[in-house]
C-alpha cells in the first residue's frame, strides 16, 4: 500500500529472531514501566485513585476502545488500516435502536449489532481486497458512509428505551467490582493473543505485513486473510457498539466520534508498527491500560479531557521517536 513503500521501510531484517524479539521485549517492558509509573503517580497525587470502585469505573475508559484495538492491531500488522471503526459503531448502534420498535428482545439486539458490524467489515474487506483500493482512503470513505447513514436515519434525534436486560453489557458486574466489559476485554485479549502468536493464521498476518509479495509466493491467500481481518474488525466494532450503547442507554449519530484516531493511537502506542509486520497483543493491552489510567488519573485531578489529549498525542510521538533517536545515538 501507498504509505509504506518508502525507501527505508523495505529493509527486511536477516536475523529476525534475535534482534527483533529483543527490541520487542524492551518495548513491552518500557510500557510496563510507564504503566507502573502512572499508577504510582496517580495514587500519590489523588487519595481517590486507590479505590476499588473508582478503579472499576476507570476501566470504561479503555474497554470498548480496547476491544476494537485488538482487531485493529491485526489489521495494522497486515499492512492495512481501518479508519471506519467509529462509523461502524454509529451504524450498528443505530440499527439496534431502529430494531427497538420491532420488539426483538435483548438477544435480537445483540445479534443485530454484531451482524451489522460484521457486514460493514465485510464491505471494507471487499473494497480493499476485491476492488484493490488503498485501505486508508477506502475506509475514510466508508467512515463517512456508515456514520452518514446513521445521520440519515436519526437526523438530530436519538433512540432511547433499551430493555433493562440489555443494560447488563455496559453496566453489569460479573463479580464484585469486576465489570462485564472488563471480563469481555480480558477474554478477547487472550483470544486475540493466542490467535496472533500461536496459530498458523497469526503467523501469516506477520508474513503479509512484512512482504505481501513474498507471502503470496509462499502460498498465503493474502486477500482472504485481509478479508477475514476486516470482517473481524467490523465484528469487534459491532461488539463495542453493543457495550457502548448499553452503557449509554441511547443512540445518537454522533456516538463514538473521533474514536478511530484514539484506537489507532492505542495500537501504535502498544508497539504495533504502523507500517505493518510487527507488534504484539500484549503491547496493545498494556497501551490500553496506560491510556485508561492516564485518562482516569487526570480526570481525578480535574484536568480537562482536551488537555489529556495533548498528553496522549505527545506520548504517541515520543514513544515512536525515542527508540529511533536512541538507535541513532548508539550508532554514533
Amino acid at each position, binding site marked *: 500500500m*501507498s*504509505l509504506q513503500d518508502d525507501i527505508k521501510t523495505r529493509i527486511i531484517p536477516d536475523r529476525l529472531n534475535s534482534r527483533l524479539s529483543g527490541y520487542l521485549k524492551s518495548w513491552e517492558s518500557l510500557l510496563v514501566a510507564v504503566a507502573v509509573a502512572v499508577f504510582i503517580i496517580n495514587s500519590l497525587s489523588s487519595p481517590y485513585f486507590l479505590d476499588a470502585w473508582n478503579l472499576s469505573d476507570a476501566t470504561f475508559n479503555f474497554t470498548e476502545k480496547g476491544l476494537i484495538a485488538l482487531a485493529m492491531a491485526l489489521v495494522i500488522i497486515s499492512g492495512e488500516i481501518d479508519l471506519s471503526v467509529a462509523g461502524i459503531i454509529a451504524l450498528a448502534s443505530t440499527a439496534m435502536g431502529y430494531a427497538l420498535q420491532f420488539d426483538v428482545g435483548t438477544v435480537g439486539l445483540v445479534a443485530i449489532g454484531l451482524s451489522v458490524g460484521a457486514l460493514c467489515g465485510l464491505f471494507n474487506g471487499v473494497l480493499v481486497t476485491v*476492488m484493490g483500493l488503498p485501505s*486508508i482512503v477506502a475506509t475514510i470513505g466508508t467512515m*463517512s*458512509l*456508515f456514520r452518514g447513514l446513521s445521520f440519515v436515519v*436519526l437526523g438530530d434525534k436519538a433512540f432511547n428505551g433499551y430493555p433493562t436486560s440489555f443494560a447488563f453489557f455496559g453496566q453489569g458486574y460479573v463479580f464484585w467490582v469486576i465489570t462485564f466489559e472488563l471480563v469481555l476485554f480480558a477474554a478477547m485479549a487472550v483470544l486475540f493473543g493466542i490467535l496472533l502468536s500461536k496459530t498458523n493464521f497469526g503467523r501469516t498476518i506477520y508474513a503479509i505485513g512484512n512482504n505481501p509479495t513474498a507471502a503470496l509466493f509462499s502460498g498465503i491467500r493474502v486477500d482472504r486473510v485481509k478479508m477475514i481481518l476486516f470482517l473481524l474488525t467490523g465484528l469487534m466494532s459491532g461488539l463495542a457498539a453493543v457495550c457502548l450503547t448499553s452503557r449509554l442507554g441511547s443512540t445518537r449519530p454522533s456516538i463514538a466520534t473521533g474514536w478511530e484516531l484514539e484506537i489507532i493511537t492505542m495500537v501504535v502506542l502498544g508497539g504495533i508498527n504502523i507500517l505493518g509486520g510487527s507488534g504484539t497483543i500484549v503491547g496493545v493491552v498494556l497501551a490500553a491500560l496506560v491510556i485508561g489510567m492516564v485518562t482516569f488519573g487526570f480526570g481525578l485531578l480535574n484536568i480537562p479531557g482536551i488537555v489529556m489529549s*495533548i498528553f496522549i498525542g505527545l506520548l504517541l510521538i515520543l514513544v515512536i521517536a525515542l527508540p529511533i533517536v536512541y538507535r541513532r545515538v548508539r550508532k554514533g
Partner: protein
Amino acid sequence: MKRILLSREIMLAFAIVLLTGGIALRFPGFIAPNNIALVFNDTSILIILALGQMAVILTRCIDLSMASNLALSGMVVAMINAAFPGVPIPALIGLAIIVGTILGAVNGLLVWKLDIPPIVVTLGTLTIYRGLIFVISDGAWVNSHEMSAAFKALPRSVIAGLPVLSWVAIATIGLAFFAIRRLPLGRSLYAVGGDPHAAVYTGIDVGKTRFMAFSIAGGLSGLAGYLWVSRYAVSYVDIAGGFELSIIAACVIGGVSIAGGIGSVGGAVLGALFLGVINNALPVINVSPFWQMAISGTAIIVAVALNVRSERTKGRIILKRAEAAV
C-alpha cells in the same frame, strides 16, 4: 484527443456540470451567476486547504493535522484581535500564516529528521494542536462582538463582484498552478512521490521536499484559519473539527493518488468544488442535510475506485504491489 476527454479533470468537471445541470432543471435559481459565486465562495476555504494537502500527498505523505492547525492559528489571531483591536489586519493575516507554517514545519521536521511515519506524526499533532487551543483560550469562545469590525469585514468585502475570500482562493489556485509547473520544488514533489529512490539519485533531498510540503500545507492552514474565524465570526476549540477528512476527500475525489506522485491542481480544485456543490445543493433540492455525510462518503469510495482503475493501466503489474516491493 481521447486521452484529454477521459482525463480525470474533464470527467470530474463533466460530473459537476451534470450535477448542477440536473439541479437547475428543477431549480433554475441554482445556476444563477449569483448563486454559483456563492457556492464558490463557500468552497474557497476547502479549495485552499485541498491544495496544501495535495502538496503533502504528492510526496507520499498525509497531513491529518490541517484542521487542528487551522483552528489553532485562527484562535491565535482571533485572541490577539480581541485583546488588541489596534493591530492591523494584514499583520494578523501574516501572523496566522507564520503560526500555521511553524505548526506544519513541526510535522515536517518529525517526518524528515526522525523518519516517523507521517500518519503517526500528524495523528499526534492533530490532538496536540487541538488541545493547545484549549490551553491558550482556556476553553473560552472569541465571539463576534469581541472581534474588530475590520477583522470580520475583510473576507466579505467585495472587489470586482467577488468577495475577498473568493479572490484569496483564486490567487492560491494561480500560485499553486505556477509553483507546481514552474518551480523546482513543485516538480520535486512529483519526483519524490513517484519514486523516492529515483528522486534521491537525481539529487533531490526527499526528506527536505517533504518538510517543505508540510510547511506549505501548514502555511495554507494558517491562512485558512484567519479566513475561517473571520468569515464565521467566531472561534472556539472545536471549529473545523473533522474537516481534515473532508480535505483529504477533496483531494482523492480530484484524482490525487494517495500513493503519491499523481495529481493536479485542477483536479484538487474540482474535487473540492464537487463537495461544495453537493453541500450547497442538498438544501435546494429539499434533501435533508443529514444526507451530506453519506453522499460524500460514497463519492470518496467511487472516486478511489476510479483512481485505482486508471492507475492500473500503466505498466504491467503481475502481482499487486509487485512494483512497490522492488
